[in-house]
């Protein structure tokens, strides 16, 4: 007996904004409502709900998944919240996939939400509590320092310049100018703008980083026999992969994300992909920082080690290039409400592969796309491959 095929049949997302007036629950409701409307279903058609949201400390709500349950449409339904830190956004569709592939459900709602503005004055302080309480927290680490170390390591190992990395931010923010839900789209931005922006923790500068934001995204997933009845254009989940590395991140090779490689290989195997660089038409690597997109493209085997900047130099990564990267605008352009940002990438692939991405539509009727997220202590990779 073969594996049950699972399709995405509907998607919705709220605007990504700095300080949403809506509560977290209202944001969840809004995205869920839009996703259901996009495929003309109602909550009565939904058999189970999967939710993703990052640390409870942002909202200051214990068991935040329970609090969000009715907003996500889970009243009187089987409901679970999955969690892999920053990788959660691309993990929730995997959770939706196994709900359906297991044969227990036919139609599942997948919802991701993040409200980072509740944390006053800035969500960054919540991140102090992600570090080991004995060995690291007393040092009062800050996420920006940690990323500065990793970025530095990546640049030093391969001789990559700040200009090479700034190109990522420029392309993604320009792409986002065409995204109606984007927070930081900018069609005029230049490499100089990025290089001249405020230094946060060298070599990280303000425009190297994605913004803290609020937002929610939802998808409707269906089993093959239901998907074919409900839509002419199902987008199939062809491969999924995830890997979680040790918590001892200080022992890790910071120049290369092996956990992303392993997650990607798992997904490629399942999708039957032998040559990813030829078979992936659109890539949505996780880009909370501009260097991270490059780092992840290498882990995903879409570029040789240290060679990812080349994709941005020779035009491969552009919207009309051979393998457009983050046509959505990515986290750098659309915004980074953590779990919602990951799921936004899946929604983007859904719209792109259906030819419904409007001004962001990549030419040439792409057949297959890959989305990836990353999280925890430079530790987890989550990958989904979708195809027409």
């Amino acid at each position, binding site marked *: 007996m073969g594996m049950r095929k699972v399709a995405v049949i509907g998607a919705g997302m709220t605007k990504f904004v700095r300080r949403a007036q809506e509560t977290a629950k209202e944001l969840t409701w809004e995205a869920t409502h839009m996703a259901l409307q996009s495929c003309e279903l109602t909550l009565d058609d939904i058999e189970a709900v999967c939710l993703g949201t990052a640390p409870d*400390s942002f909202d200051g709500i214990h*068991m935040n998944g329970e*609090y969000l349950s009715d907003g996500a449409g*889970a009243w009187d339904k089987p*409901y679970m919240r*999955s969690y892999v830190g920053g990788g959660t956004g691309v993990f929730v569709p995997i959770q939706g996939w196994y709900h359906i592939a297991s044969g227990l459900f036919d139609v599942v709602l997948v919802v991701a939400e993040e409200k980072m503005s509740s944390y006053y004055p800035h969500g960054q302080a919540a991140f102090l509590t992600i570090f080991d*309480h004995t060995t690291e927290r007393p040092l009062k680490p800050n996420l920006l320092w940690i990323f500065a170390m990793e970025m530095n390591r990546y640049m030093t190992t391969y001789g990559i310049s700040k200009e090479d990395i700034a190109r990522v931010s420029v392309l993604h923010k320009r792409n986002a100018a065409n995204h109606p839900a984007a927070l930081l789209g900018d069609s005029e931005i230049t490499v100089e703008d990025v290089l001249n922006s405020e230094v946060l923790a060298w070599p990280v500068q303000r425009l190297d980083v994605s913004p803290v934001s609020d937002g929610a995204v939802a998808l409707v997933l269906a089993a093959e026999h239901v998907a074919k009845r409900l839509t002419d254009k199902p987008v199939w989940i062809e491969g999924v992969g*995830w890997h979680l590395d040790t918590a001892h991140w200080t022992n890790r090779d910071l120049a290369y994300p092996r956990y992303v490689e*392993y997650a990607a290989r798992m997904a490629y195997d399942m999708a039957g992909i032998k040559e990813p660089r030829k078979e992936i038409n659109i890539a949505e690597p996780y880009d909370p920082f501009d260097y991270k997109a490059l780092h992840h493209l290498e882990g995903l085997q879409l570029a040789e080690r240290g060679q990812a900047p080349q994709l941005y130099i020779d035009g491969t990564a552009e919207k009309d290039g051979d393998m457009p990267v983050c046509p959505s605008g990515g986290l750098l352009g659309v915004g980074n409400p953590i779990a919602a940002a990951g799921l936004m990438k899946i929604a983007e692939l859904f719209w792109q592969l259906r030819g419904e991405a409007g001004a962001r539509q990549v030419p040439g009727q792409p057949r297959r796309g890959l989305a990836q997220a990353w999280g925890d202590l430079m530790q987890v990779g989550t990958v989904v491959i979708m195809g027409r």
Partner: protein
Amino acid sequence: MSERVAIIGVGWSGFRPVTPEVSYKELIYEAGVRAYSDAGVDPRKDVETFVTVAEDFHEGTSIFDEYTPDQLGAALKPMHTICGDGLHGLGTAYMLIRTGQFEVVALEGHSKASNILTLPEVTAYAQDPVINRPLRFNTDFIAGMEMNRFLYESGTSFEQCATVVTKNRRNALYNPSAPYGANLTLEEVLNGPDLAWPLGFHEKARHADGAVVMVLASEERARFLSETPIWILGVGWCNGSFSLESREWGGLPYIENAARMAYRQLGITNPRGVVDFAEVDDIYAYKELQSLEALGLFSPGEAGPLTEEGYTAIDGELPVNVSGGSLGMGNLLDANGLARTLEVVLQLRGEAGPRQLEDVEIGLVQSWRGVPTTSGAVAILSN
């Protein structure tokens, strides 16, 4: 796709009121080593994916899933966390195997409740921050309200609720892993201090530390690896209304739904006569009675009188919480469902020692995530 899924290994450490000499990682490591050795698997080679259940605020660490892999041998392996009860984790492991992508899955849940200095305050942080939190409801007060409504609707008496306490804590005397075994009289329970009237002090499970790890496998692997696979016949889970204002207080519709989902997988509509024994939620004594009725094991209003008659005692028609339940083994936070499942596995294998039930074939497990949630799960296991 493997239709059938079995539990082929169990391991646990604890359960004790305090464990100052070990960290949560050491508790999990001990439980993991026991489970892997019980199942005869090497986590680095044989286990393909790992699932844990945890909540950030219980751990005092944000993004707690960061700290889950090492002590389970799961570093650089597919692993994820479910913010749910252990039974939600069991449902997840069950689904993962049924996709056909995985043959062997490890599942972990733990409690280090003794590390939490402000547990009542932490639990209160689960209430709606806009509508409920300003009212400063104490968690036990919400349980007291629910108990009052349940007693009113079902006609259950204080004595019947207290019988759950005396029964479960006496059962715990026969369970070496249960820290709260005691020979209490009905009077002692009834005359104890109030917690949130009508809820009494002795009717709330005290917390404990411990960890449970289980290894699950597809039918093919289970038959190869294990001589005593315990089959998962059905799993169900459901959420009700999160809002305190719009939920039902007397019954547990979410447990009814979760049970219905599990029963459908067995092809039964009525569990009575099918289930030989049950391990159900009793983090408050009245919950055992309310849950047994929601599960359809008893009719509304029947659980109290039958408990009083000894129907659910260790030598009764339908033994319930022979392990001692949460009242006897301690409230293990996110691991409660796994502790209940552990007992069902041991009973079905015939490894329950002095509390072993005779001729049992089908056991039911049910759990609840605690106040203020309406989140519960059910599983049915067979040998």
